[in-house]
């Protein structure tokens, strides 16, 4: 198996038939219960498995050549996947025609595309292992109920496809040309319904079939086109049901072409994939990786195909059990071992570079040699946090040494809290100062936290680490650290491809990450692990609001309700996507937030370099010299 195949982690890379690749999510029952004959809005961020789920439901997968037994029930819902050609759709506006004509044109285009896809689905059924409908049956089918639209509409399957394809070509030329009145009639929406009814009557196996149309990447449509799709959702009824998939925060308009809007429950049901994935992430994410390991690399792991591809209630129960989750965790920890903070502190003190550096920091603050020796001989975690205490205004050497002695003796001490609050930050500070990759980024647990609810990010961390393990049974911490940094750098770079405002998102991410990175460089570590912010006061600018929406939509930021809210604070906080943490050498744990005024945020987003630099100095209370101290070329 090619390493590149092993590392595939986007649904698009698997094609339309995902029968051999689709692992039934542990939460599939929850999704299935929502899949009635009411339209669905599937909402999920990048890497939530949205496209994979849609492709699984569609005819290419359900009637896959690889599916050897296909029950009659598979024909009750035939899924049609439509990822719209948005560059062509966006083109259907203005140019001497009013919106009404373009709306009809867009609707006509959807009629042609969906009709051709429905006809294509019949071929999938005919060519599949389904026993009651074959190629001969398809050739015998007659589509005689459509000639009311055009008396030239042919009745046979192949001719009908040729007819619709030709119409689509004419339409393409018309849209592309300098608009002149169309020389053809637009087939109305009802054409699809009549086509579906023809099929239902055409062969008994389709008698109860409902065609489920799934429109992916809905958010990339023009607003007037969203209104058309919303209208289809509102008026969906058997045998054609419209469903859409989009990123979070992407339903920008609930309006239809009429006076009504689409309303959840009344008109559609919503699947919030992010929430479901997040709830089951610790099981589902390792399952996918371990299955790929087993299938592509022939490594025995504890996951079994029969279970991952099963719809049995008992299997779902097992997959949701604590024991199974613990077993998976154990298995993943064996492959991707990590270290606790205290273990990392101990490791640091085995390294003379860290040891000498910490001792030098103590001596620089005029600690006597005897005390330095006492400190350096203390438990490693105390040694690592000690230099940070020297920077704090409240520091008193005598009291601190007393507390240190208590901690070393295993008694209750102020060091318990200090270590709890600052050790992680102090370790990052020390490693960052030496431009070394920190072992805290390694390990299955860290991978889970860094990828948050993003399956693609988790798999990227696992695949690339695994592919570098060499002959070892597991992936060394050093290898993981290098890989994590590389993946993180890729993900930061990928921001540049996230939609129309990608460059603004990228600049914002670089600036925000650099601000947190500068905070991390503070020797006192009094407020370590900053990686969140909130905006104090109301959001008054449309620009700010729309950029924030875009940042959340593309998961550069994760929005959540503010945990401790003061009177003048906006009710939400924003977590910087933890996958970017290794790139900036900051913490991936959700810990401390920085309050920004609206003006601060605007400087981050839109301000010039000078204003940004002064914001960083103000927020981090650094002086200019410290701030301008950059890393060397070797930090690449």
């Amino acid at each position, binding site marked *: 198996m090619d390493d590149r195949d092993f590392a595939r982690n986007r649904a698009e890379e698997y094609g339309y038939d995902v029968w051999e690749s689709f692992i039934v999510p542990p939460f599939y029952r929850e999704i299935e219960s929502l899949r009635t004959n009411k339209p669905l809005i599937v909402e999920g961020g990048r890497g939530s498995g949205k496209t994979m789920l849609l492709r699984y439901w569609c005819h290419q997968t359900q009637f896959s050549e690889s599916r050897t037994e296909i029950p009659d029930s598979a024909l009750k819902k035939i899924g049609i996947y439509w990822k719209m050609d948005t560059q062509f759709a966006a083109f259907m506006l203005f140019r001497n025609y009013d919106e009404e004509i373009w709306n009809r044109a867009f609707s006509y285009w959807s009629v042609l595309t969906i009709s051709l896809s429905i006809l294509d689905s019949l071929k999938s059924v005919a060519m599949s292992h389904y026993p009651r409908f074959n190629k001969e049956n398809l050739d015998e089918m007659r589509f005689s109920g459509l000639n009311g639209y055009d008396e030239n509409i042919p009745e046979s399957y192949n001719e009908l496809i040729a007819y619709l394809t030709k119409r689509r070509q004419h339409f393409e030329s018309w849209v592309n040309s300098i608009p002149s009145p169309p020389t053809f009639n637009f087939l109305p929406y009802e054409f699809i319904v009549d086509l579906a009814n023809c099929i239902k009557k055409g062969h008994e196996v389709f008698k109860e079939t409902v065609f489920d149309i799934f429109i992916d990447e809905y958010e990339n449509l023009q607003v007037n086109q969203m209104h058309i799709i919303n209208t289809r959702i509102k008026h969906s009824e058997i045998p054609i049901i419209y469903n859409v998939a989009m990123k979070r925060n992407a339903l920008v308009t609930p309006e239809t072409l009429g006076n009504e809007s689409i309303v959840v429950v009344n008109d559609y049901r919503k699947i919030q994939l992010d929430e479901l994935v997040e709830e089951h992430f610790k099981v589902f994410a390792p399952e996918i990786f371990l299955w790929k390991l087993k299938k592509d690399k022939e490594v025995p792991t504890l996951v079994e195909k029969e279970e991952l591809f099963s719809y049995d209630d008992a299997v779902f129960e097992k997959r949701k059990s604590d024991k199974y989750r613990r077993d998976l965790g154990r298995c993943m920890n064996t492959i991707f071992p990590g270290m606790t903070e205290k273990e990392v502190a101990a490791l640091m003190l085995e390294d003379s570079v860290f040891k000498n550096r910490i001792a030098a920091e103590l001596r620089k603050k005029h600690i006597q040699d005897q005390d330095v020796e006492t400190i350096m001989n203390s438990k490693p975690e105390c040694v690592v946090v000690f230099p940070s205490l020297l920077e704090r205004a409240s520091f008193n050497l005598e009291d601190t040494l007393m507390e240190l002695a208590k901690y070393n003796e295993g008694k209750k001490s102020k060091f318990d809290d200090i270590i709890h609050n600052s050790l992680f930050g102090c370790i990052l500070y020390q490693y960052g100062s030496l431009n070394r990759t920190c072992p805290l980024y390694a390990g299955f647990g860290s991978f889970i936290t860094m990828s948050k609810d993003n399956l693609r990010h988790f798999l990227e961390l696992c695949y690339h680490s695994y592919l570098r393990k060499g002959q070892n049974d597991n992936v060394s911490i050093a290898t993981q650290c290098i890989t994590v940094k590389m993946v993180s750098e890729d993900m930061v770079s990928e921001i540049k*491809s996230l939609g129309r405002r990608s460059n603004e998102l990228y600049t914002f991410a670089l600036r925000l990450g650099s601000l947190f990175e500068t905070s991390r460089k503070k020797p006192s570590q009094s407020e370590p692990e900053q990686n969140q912010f909130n905006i104090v006061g109301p959001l008054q600018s449309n620009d700010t609001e729309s950029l924030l929406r875009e940042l959340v939509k593309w998961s550069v930021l994760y929005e959540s309700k503010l945990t401790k809210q003061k009177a003048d604070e906006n009710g939400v906080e924003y977590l910087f996507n933890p996958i970017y943490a290794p790139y900036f050498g900051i913490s991936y744990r959700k810990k401390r937030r920085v309050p920004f005024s609206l003006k601060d945020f605007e400087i981050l987003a839109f301000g010039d370099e000078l204003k940004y630099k002064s914001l960083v100095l103000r927020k981090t209370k650094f002086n200019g010299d410290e701030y301008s101290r950059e890393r060397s070329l070797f930090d690449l």
Partner: protein
Amino acid sequence: MVMNILENEAFSTFDIEMLHGDDISKVDVSADLKFSIVGPTIDERCGFCLEYLDGKTKVYRVEYDSTNFVLCINNTQIQINELPEFIKDEGWTNDSIIIDATSVNVVELLLLIDAFEKTDVRRFEVLYAEPKNYVPQGTRPRNRRDFKLSEKYDGYKGVPMFSKMTREADAKVFCCGYEAARIQNAIETLPIGTSDTYLLFGMPPFYVGWDMNAYYNHINFLVKENLHNISYCGATNPLSVMMRLLDIYKTLLPDQNMFIAPVGTKPMSLAVCLFLVKMASSNKCALLFDHPEKSAARSKEVGEVNLYRIQL
């Protein structure tokens, strides 16, 4: 004549002469020019070209509005189908026009050349001043190949007369510059897949070493998407790009179309425009473009100057 090189009937009258120098005085800009077409002045080299052309010629400032699908010429809105008429009215004729491709953007270049093809303007000149430096995004060493060339994009959106519906089976050609994300964005948002994808890098580049910036910014993406069809055409040599495009065109299956995304250097984009215009009658070639809003001061100082004498 380059007809022997571009072996296709569509290019039977086509010719291009390419002149290159370290200063505008060395490229022999025709003395008979009457009209120059420029775009927005966003950096030093655009200003440099404008200064050279202003006074010698009547200057037209052209911009395409991708929201409304119209052209703005000297602040007057013109429908695309009205452009040939505009050219006639303004008296633009053979050997009287120079387009400053330094500032004129890709779509404008395409629509102008197309309008020339439809009128009696068969010969014109195109000027292009290379940048001396691009400005990296941020000052860190790790960002040294990271250039902010665009502020935002209007998104991939068709241009009248040069659009088609994309299909996965179609061939895709990307001219590569520094902005790999634009290609990645096309592949992720459009139903085009990655089969039959061709990448053209500008080699030799404007300056020794600049090709490394392009490779560095593309390499992860190329590996990830498993893209192998890579070719090299001179960054300032439209003819070599056209030859490669024609090679790809010849491999198309009967029902296969070809989408070309000019997201590389401007001379490469010029080649794409010329190719699309000349091959329009084949009804198999289309433009793929995301309409960037270019960053102000994206480059510093003026590098070498190129002049292309074109006969359609």
